[in-house]
């Protein structure tokens, strides 16, 4: 079988081969104990277009009918290898185009606005800005600059979101992006706290680099990743005053899961990580802050450092069980039996945490193609949008409406996971409100809004910024211009004196920060959707409205649809076109087709893949 696979693929790569051997060893061992094992590979005879489609949904972001057909012509092994062993596919990597909004004067960045302005008042300078020697608002520019960087980093992170979404859409290695997205949720790190898009870009590239590699490499890289170190307060985890945040999360969320360690283990492990920090964008260990004394973690004692603790964690069976089950729940399905859970943990251990080996076995397995797995997964918002674009055969993520706003509204914004646990998946994606919103996102895609305002240029809905700018332009003094509108201030009622003396004004700073940030940060391109449904149907040789309905259902929807529903949809489009003959309607059918598509993609079942 090894020979056959290598012949078929006409390829030799040592790493993959080791993987295949390990995988075969696992399946042989499993087959010996249980002949109808759920993780046993399906036979080539069972392979068909529906299974290829399912594989592309799960190992990627869905696919056009042409891609499905292409994968259906392969053997299941070839199809899975093509997706999992993606390193052999050349990557048309377009690096992120940095706007250059950061400069060295911003380092080290203050922990808070008061910290920035207090430092300025105490030392005469902060964030590379000197305090004005005399006059009103002497540290205004410091406050401006503090808020400038928060704003610039945020806007740049939105560009980063677009960059990544475009990568998901057009990459020839979809599983690499999908695994990177999985790890982003697993090692959840948010710009909200990190406040530095550069660190998030580095983290994203680290996760992409190790996405299908050894989990140990990834875990160590993430533990030393500046964004993660910032996110989990590494800077304050020092000898004599350990901060437990990172130690707790690495056990609870990154490796073993709740219930497999004690509070003492956390305290002890926290000491092993003391002194781990970052300097600008680099990982550093500060020996003076590292606690080199004895620690006892999970029954083992020594002068452990962070890496040694990570190895102790990886040696725990609970870790393999936890990571295996989490991958399975994400890529296959939510409910798994205790037996299957055990087998998956064993598979992870046998592969020595080799993610490619694990995924390969899973994507070939009987269970992956079973009725319980196919079309039962509720797509996370980012995947819902990217897969919709893919099936629309778009070449780029539309600039209108805004991708980040849309996914955020649906509960998932890239680089902004809701908390350290990442996104909760499955049914938690769906509420009555969110289900309607998912339909509305499709509406705005096929009929883009004509009153779109770019959120990376105009501070729409941002408290007070626009009105401050307007009032200053009308010659108002700063105190009056920045007074909150329409709110009674109650206990904090402000004095009514005009332009009072103060060190700085934060509302003024918000306005200045916005102005300076949009000067530096490049705009997001705002092309509307380049959708041509008429073209897709012509190419598919659809002649009647009924065929158009069939084609669109086939292309977009993963579950079967009843004839009654098809009939209703056909009536809708036929009435709209005034004919059932597509040829007759060829010159004017696009809008009607878009409306039909909106209805189809509003089926509750469209959420499934």
């Amino acid at each position, binding site marked *: 079988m090894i020979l056959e696979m290598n012949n078929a693929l006409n390829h030799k790569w040592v790493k993959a081969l080791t993987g295949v051997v390990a995988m075969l060893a696992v399946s042989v061992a499993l087959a010996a104990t249980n002949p109808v094992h759920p993780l046993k590979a399906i036979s080539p005879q069972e392979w068909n277009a529906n299974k290829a489609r399912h594989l592309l949904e799960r190992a990627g972001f869905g696919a056009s009918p042409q891609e499905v057909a292409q994968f259906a012509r392969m053997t299941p092994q070839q199809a899975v290898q093509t997706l999992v062993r993606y390193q052999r596919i050349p990557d048309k990597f377009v690096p992120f185009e940095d706007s250059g909004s950061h400069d060295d004067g911003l380092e080290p960045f203050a922990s808070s606005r008061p910290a920035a302005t207090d430092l300025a008042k105490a030392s005469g300078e902060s964030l590379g800005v000197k305090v004005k020697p005399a006059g009103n608002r002497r540290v205004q520019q410091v406050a401006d600059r503090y808020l400038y960087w928060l704003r610039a980093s945020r806007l740049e992170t939105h560009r980063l979101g677009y960059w990544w979404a475009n990568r998901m859409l057009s990459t020839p290695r979809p599983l690499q992006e999908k695994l990177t997205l999985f790890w982003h949720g697993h090692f959840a790190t948010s710009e909200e706290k990190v406040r530095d898009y550069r660190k998030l870009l580095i983290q994203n590239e680290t996760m992409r680099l190790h996405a299908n590699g050894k989990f140990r490499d990834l875990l160590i890289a993430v533990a030393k990743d500046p964004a993660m170190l910032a996110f989990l307060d590494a800077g304050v985890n020092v000898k004599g005053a350990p901060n437990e945040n990172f130690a707790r999360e690495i056990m609870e969320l990154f490796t073993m899961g709740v219930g497999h360690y004690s509070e003492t283990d956390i305290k002890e492990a926290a000491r092993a990580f003391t002194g781990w920090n970052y300097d600008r964008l680099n990982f550093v260990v500060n020996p003076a802050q590292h606690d080199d004394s004895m620690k006892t973690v999970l029954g083992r004692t020594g002068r452990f450092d962070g890496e040694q603790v990570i190895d102790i964690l990886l040696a725990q069976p609970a870790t393999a069980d936890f990571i295996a089950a989490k991958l399975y729940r994400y890529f296959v399905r939510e409910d798994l039996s205790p037996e299957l859970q055990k087998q998956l943990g064993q598979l992870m251990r046998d592969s020595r945490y080799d993610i490619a080996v694990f995924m390969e076995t899973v994507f070939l397995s009987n269970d992956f193609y079973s009725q319980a797995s196919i*079309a039962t997964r509720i797509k996370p918002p980012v995947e819902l949008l990217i897969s919709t674009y893919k099936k629309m055969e778009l070449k780029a993520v539309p600039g209108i409406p805004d991708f980040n706003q849309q996914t955020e509204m649906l*509960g998932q914004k890239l680089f902004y996971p809701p908390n350290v646990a990442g996104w909760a998946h499955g049914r938690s994606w769906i509420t009555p409100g969110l289900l309607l919103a998912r339909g509305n996102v499709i509406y705005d895609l096929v009929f883009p809004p004509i009153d779109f305002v770019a959120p990376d240029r105009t501070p729409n809905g941002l408290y007070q910024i626009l009105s401050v700018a307007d009032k200053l332009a009308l010659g108002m003094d700063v105190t009056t211009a920045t007074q909150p509108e329409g709110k009674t201030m109650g206990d904090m009622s402000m004095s009514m004196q005009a332009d009072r003396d103060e060190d700085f004004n934060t509302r003024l700073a918000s306005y200045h920060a916005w102005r300076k940030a949009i000067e530096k940060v490049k705009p997001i391109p705002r092309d509307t959707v380049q959708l041509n449904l008429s073209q897709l149907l012509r190419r598919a040789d659809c002649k009647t409205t009924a065929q158009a309905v069939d084609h669109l259902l086939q292309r977009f929807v993963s*579950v079967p649809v009843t004839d009654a529903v098809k009939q209703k949809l056909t009536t809708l489009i036929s009435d709209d076109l005034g004919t059932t003959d597509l040829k007759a309607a060829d010159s004017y059918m696009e809008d009607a087709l878009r409306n039909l598509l909106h209805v189809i993609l509003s089926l509750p079942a469209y959420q499934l893949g």
Partner: protein
Amino acid sequence: MNHHALSRRELLQALSAMSLSTALPLHALAKPADGNRILVVVELTGANDGFNTLVPYGDDNYYKLRPNLGIRANKLRKIDDMHGFNPGMAGFERLYKNGQMAVVHGCGYDNPSYSHFTSAAYWHTGAPNSGEPFGWLGRLADAIDPQLTPNFLINIDERQSLAVRAARHVPVVFDDPERFGRKGLYASRALLDLGTGDNADNSNSSQQFLEDVAQSARQASVQVRQAWNNYKTPIDYGILSMDLPKVAAMIHARLPGRIYHTAYRHNAFDTHVHQAELHQRLLTYVSDGIAGFMQDMKRIGRDKDVTLMVYSEFGRRPAENTSLGTDHGTANHVYVIGQPVKGGHYGQAPDFTRLNAEGNVTPTVDFRRVYATVAQQWMGADSAALLNGKFETLPVFA
């Protein structure tokens, strides 16, 4: 809202209340349910620092444990010789002094978890250290509304909270009422609004779930949007109102909702580092929002019908940490607020001199006693059945 619609809804409410009382004799322990009574539950996510919320300034140990973070007595909003609210909490001070706030001290549970998610799940389910799949508010809805009144259980948030997950009710969950509706052209309206859920033969359980939610969305969205659009208030809820104006709009419109859950979102209260200024600001928002909501209830004449409860997944450690913040703790206050509430202190403040190995206080009140109190005394449920065990109620409702 026109009068016909209103009276029709009232009629339906009355009918469902009748069928409830005839079909299901209430448990002897439960007080007769009043069909107008509403419970609003507000979660402060991230574990609010209770000791800097209602400060035990009369206890010297507080200042010993918090030499830097401890709030000086002269800055506090004192409510008696022992306790004072954080300086940012004018609204809470007023509610307490008006006798409309019950402070339940030391709420927690045995074998505490210091994980946000785990402990939040324990509070959401009302079942610490167990695998209870449904939320306590979901179970409460199932128990007191067996006829499954649409829009009975309402959760305003980005995500459905585990607290409202129910075996039988489909909770109405939305965030922005303006967006809680379907876009769609006239010709396709019927198809969108009818849905296409006649697919029973092929449907898998995920699909069934989606069809159920779609149906709930259709029922709820029109009413919620109307309620929100018809609602105007002169009351100031402050800067971050925890979605309470939305709750007020639903109550004002007399939606059938009797159980609401909202949250101060995104783990905002997880104040490990440099917390003083940030924490006070968060508390100001909480206090202004809740005081505004209570004032609004009075304005629309529903203050007798509404009780609001505030909780957090755990408290924080009494001792400050070395980053001028606080780490994960155990017991915390629960606040029960409203005109029907008998204000004052309940339970016992935890003892700072008897800290556990982690430096945390020992809870003095099982938080399920508070749940039992509001579920039974206020909502008329059999609390022992609801909470899988008998928890002594507190005399919070006069």
